[in-house]
């Protein structure tokens, strides 16, 4: 085991731990602001895991859209709907223990499925050459052209819909 392999493995476990621990903070922390900042670290951790899977374009996209867009949007939502000084949210006390038990059972079931299924992982891993960006661009313009164009219509519809839902109603209607 040379030094590069050890560093690679250690980096993987660092990002995995970062993702899982901060996701747990998102779920279990009482303060909603702390939850949002923990979600930031979760998304960064997943971007790091994407890098370990040779998905460089997706790691960059993850940081740009999630960290730059979604987190800012969520922070805006909290600032506009809470008194920031006392911005803490309760965790539903009634459902907490049954949900925890149900999620434990679900997780064990998922583990069972993961180890039961014969994944065809044999042979060498994918070789994506010099990055994936150019290849993804080509795929979007050839094989996935129709979904790509439809998604632009979806973006337009979501833009109009979000503005018309969030806009304050006129009082003299």
């Amino acid at each position: 085991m040379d030094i590069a392999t050890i560093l690679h493995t250690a980096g993987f476990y660092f990002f995995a731990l970062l993702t899982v621990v901060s996701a747990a903070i998102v779920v279990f922390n009482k303060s909603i602001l702390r939850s949002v900042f923990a979600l930031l670290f979760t998304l960064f951790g997943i971007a790091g895991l994407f890098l370990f899977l040779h998905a460089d374009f997706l790691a960059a996209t993850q940081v740009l859209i999630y960290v730059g867009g979604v987190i800012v949007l969520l922070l805006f939502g909290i600032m506009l709907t809470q008194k920031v000084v006392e911005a803490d949210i309760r965790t539903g006390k009634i459902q907490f223990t049954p949900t925890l038990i149900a999620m434990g059972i679900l997780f064990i079931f998922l583990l069972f499925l993961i180890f039961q299924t014969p994944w065809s992982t044999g042979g060498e891993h994918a070789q994506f050459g010099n990055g994936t960006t150019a290849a993804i661009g080509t795929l979007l313009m050839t094989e996935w052209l129709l979904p790509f164009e439809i998604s632009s219509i979806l973006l337009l519809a979501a833009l109009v819909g979000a503005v018309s839902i969030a806009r304050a109603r006129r009082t003299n209607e």
Partner: protein
Amino acid sequence: MITLAPGLYHYLIIAAILFCLGLMAILTRRNGIAILMGIELILNAANLNFVAFSYYVTRTLGGHVFVVFNILLAAIEAAVALAIVFAIYRHFHSVEVPDVNIMKG
């Protein structure tokens, strides 16, 4: 089967943990924005699975393209859902989901 060096199972287990935590957030949180964060966690778990399968199983870039669409959908969903949260806040002066019960008999 499961080794110290990262393999497919490691990524699948991380995604399973993220999925369970996200579902936990949706089921136990009372705040609408916190429920949205749970949805983001679940979408990220799915994305991680797509990329892991694309690297270890199919060895093509189809999974990557799907994740691009998924990230797009997550951004759209966050924008529209936050607009709905604002509309709820204007009506009920609260974003706590249990307070929104005017259709309850």
